[in-house]
């Protein structure tokens, strides 16, 4: 902030509103609490004491209205896909999607004979971060969340978006 630096007393910081909003947004990635398969076990493990997602401000919410991030953790069957899409549409903007694990990324082991499996959740909802693995370890999920934080921090909120 150039000329304004050190002009004020201690405990006063100067920043742009965009940066402040993005900083606070990226520090509270409240994710939607639902799991579809074994990836959900790793997600639960990531949220529990050992990996403790809450130190990044990420905590599970059981309502789509309160959630910022949808972690699609597991196999998306065609039957579930219709529900996942509806739940995504119920989330308030701004909203983000993490596709966790091979099944959500591309159908995974159901790629060839999965008559009932959607081959990638990105066919129905936009995905921000893909996490490979079958299932990914909690560390991988944490890295995915941190990638999403990075994406959030670089996003223009008030400034006009460039076309």
């Amino acid at each position, binding site marked *: 902030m150039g000329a304004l630096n050190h002009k004020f007393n201690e405990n006063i910081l100067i920043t742009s509103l965009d940066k402040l909003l993005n900083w606070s947004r990226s520090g509270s990635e409240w994710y939607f609490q639902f799991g579809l398969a074994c990836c959900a076990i790793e997600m639960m493990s990531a949220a529990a004491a050992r990996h403790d997602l809450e130190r990044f401000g990420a905590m599970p919410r059981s309502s789509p209205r309160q959630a910022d991030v949808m972690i699609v953790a597991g196999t998306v069957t*065609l*039957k579930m*896909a*219709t529900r996942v899409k509806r739940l995504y549409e119920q989330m308030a903007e701004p909203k983000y999607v993490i596709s966790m694990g091979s099944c959500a990324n591309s*159908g995974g082991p159901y*790629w*060839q*004979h999965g*008559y*009932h499996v*959607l*081959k990638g959740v990105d*066919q*129905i909802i936009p995905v921000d971060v893909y996490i490979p693995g079958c299932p990914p370890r909690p560390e991988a999920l944490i890295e995915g969340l941190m990638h999403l934080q990075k994406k959030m921090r670089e996003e223009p909120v008030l400034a006009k978006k460039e076309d």
Partner: protein
Amino acid sequence: MTEQEIYANLSRKFGDKVIEFMEEGTHNPTVVVDAGAIAKIVTYLKDDEKLQFDSLMNLAGHDADVETEFSVIYHLVSTELKHYITLKVFTSRDEPKVASIANIHRTADWHERETFDLYGINFEGHPDLKRILMEDDWEGYPLRKDYVPAEFYRGMRIEKVK
């Protein structure tokens, strides 16, 4: 009671409704019975003093080949007398129907719905025979050997097997 003895007992009671006893090449000794008589036979097995088959462990459909008939397999156990029996019925591909045993063993309710869902076998007399796993508007019966996966479901693409 051994499976052989149970087979002899059923043969005496039901005559030609009890078709065959299979021991070779099967995991469990199996009694093949008539599809229409299965409800009567299971009731008898449950109520008879010497048999007391009070629990249905499993009920499953099976499609061996596009040429052959469907079959339904019943695994019964007597928790009192500690003996087991496996029953098997065959039903035609064109009009698959088997008598329901959902009113005799409650376990059979969902198992028969699952078998109906995936093989299209009609269980006559079932209280609520509808799909249990697939969506209600799903077309076809996925575990049939001649099932061809659809290209789309509600606008979502199902990749073709290459």
